[in-house]
């Protein structure tokens, strides 16, 4: 019965939603088993077959050192999306915890933290990202750290306002009058009620963070080659754009598709949680 209702819901869903589910399923397969989809090595170099256009042997063509682009783009899925997911998770945990404490405690601590966090927000995200990765140097670790710092204020703000709203509600007052400690009220009562807000923020920020990750990779500030990453492949393709457009086409399309599907998912989460 429930399977039937699920199928019925799918049929009624708008085309963009169906497409997004389909793409998410494809990306899930590419993340779990890239070698199953693209058995060729994403890093094996073969100068003899450099800059070949798409063909039956190399579906997406080859790059300037003869690596198979289909394998590179497919294997990059896990790396690129994993980096963004990890960075945002770090950001959500740090920003969420700080925001919860700040909003719940209020007072001077709250004022100070909120001001400090606002400083990060005065820079456009890409510029903050460029400064942090530029100063720390390229590499996956620094990229994750940079993205985490750039998006921390947005998690902080939502957790803070959530905690402030919850703090004003009667159940918190009731818990206080029953003699529960502040830490226990925050952890057991307030935090679970703020969590959905943080989750929603995570899904909504994912496509934005993905764009910044790709842009930093494109500027040469991301994952070091030969590790496959969509942004880095685009950086490499930039120099051959007029002779080998296929290097740049595919990673961009994958970025577009993943951004699109997560964005549509985010809209839906937002509608479900009823705050959109």
């Amino acid at each position: 019965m429930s399977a039937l209702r699920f199928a019925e819901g799918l049929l009624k869903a708008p085309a963009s939603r169906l497409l997004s589910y389909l793409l998410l399923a494809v990306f899930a397969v590419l993340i779990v088993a890239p070698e199953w989809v693209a058995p060729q090595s994403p890093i094996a170099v073969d100068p003899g077959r450099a800059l070949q256009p798409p063909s039956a042997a190399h579906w997406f063509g080859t790059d300037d050192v003869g690596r198979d682009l289909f394998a590179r783009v497919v294997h990059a899925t896990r790396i690129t999306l994993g980096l963004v997911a990890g960075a945002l998770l770090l950001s959500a945990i740090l920003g969420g915890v700080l925001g919860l404490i700040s909003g719940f405690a209020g007072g001077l601590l709250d004022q100070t933290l909120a001001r400090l966090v606002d400083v990060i927000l005065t820079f456009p995200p890409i510029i903050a990202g460029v400064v942090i990765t530029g100063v720390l140097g390229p590499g996956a670790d620094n990229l994750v750290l940079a993205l985490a710092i750039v998006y921390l204020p947005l998690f902080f703000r939502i957790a803070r306002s959530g905690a402030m709203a919850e703090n004003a509600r009667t159940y918190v007052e009731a818990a206080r009058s029953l003699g529960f400690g502040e830490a226990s009220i925050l952890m057991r009562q307030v935090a679970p009620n703020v969590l959905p807000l943080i989750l929603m923020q995570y899904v909504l920020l994912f496509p934005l963070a993905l764009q910044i990750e790709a842009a930093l990779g494109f500027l040469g500030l991301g994952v070091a080659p030969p590790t496959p990453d969509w942004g880095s492949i685009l950086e490499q393709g930039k120099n051959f754009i007029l002779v080998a457009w296929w290097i740049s086409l595919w990673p961009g399309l994958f970025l577009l598709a993943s951004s699109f599907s997560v964005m549509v998912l985010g809209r839906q989460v937002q509608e479900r949680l009823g705050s959109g």
Partner: protein
Amino acid sequence: MAALVSSLIVFSLMRAVPGDIVGQMLGQTSDPTATEALRGFFGLDRPLYAQFTEWLIDVLRGDLGRSWYQGQAVTSLVSEAFLVTLQIAVLTLIVSTLIGVPLGVLAGIAEGSKIDGLIRAFNLIGLSAPVFWVGLMLLVGASALFSWSPPFTYSSPSENLSDNFEIIILPILSLGALQAAAYSHFVRECMVSELRRDYIRAALAKGLSPAVVYFKHALRNILVPLVTFMGLILIQILGGTVVIESLFSIPGLGRLILSGIQGRDYPVVQGALLFVVFVAITVNFLVDAAYGLIDPRLRK
């Protein structure tokens, strides 16, 4: 205040990490005497707070210092680069407004129709596409269709207007198309919720022509969020130019920051970032000031 704290953070961040300009100038084979002498020359041997106060006092006097590489005054480097970026940003804003707002209004009025579906598809694709990738694809398209590609040496509009146009057209198209999508998406949402309100139904019911209702009543009511959004878009465009400038070799603010960081040219990076914060604050201020002009109820 925010500008002060952020410049302090930028200042310490740049000095906190290993590798300074002296290391880059001398490379691996540096002898300690030369290193010391050069560090002394750039003032890097002095305590951090002393370096910062000295810089801050100069900034308040309107002096951002000199580039450690080119020896030029940072103020002139930043203002030259900013003019380049500003031209692109303003033209992009105009292009995206002219495309995005009508599309959004149209989609909002025709909610649920085929046209609405098409515009929404454009919006979603535009919101998901990386701007530099769109730039790359435009390069490929222009070269395939018109066998034309932009020159990669910059000329300013005062030097040569047509050369300047050839350089900035693709950056503006790629940035503009994406921001138009963001615009159109936002305007559509505003329009849809505005058209659901009672006064619209009443106006239509009493026989006012739909054109008057849509354009005079509904559009006027969404002007305030629209202007707020315009400020956001402008800041987004300024950020987006960082990547686009690097792709099309345009000597704007983004490229200045990028090369400054890579060369550890502290005065340039500090000056340029301070300027970015200043621009962001100014844009927000202008947006606030515009509210009063649009909506008399918001005048204090």
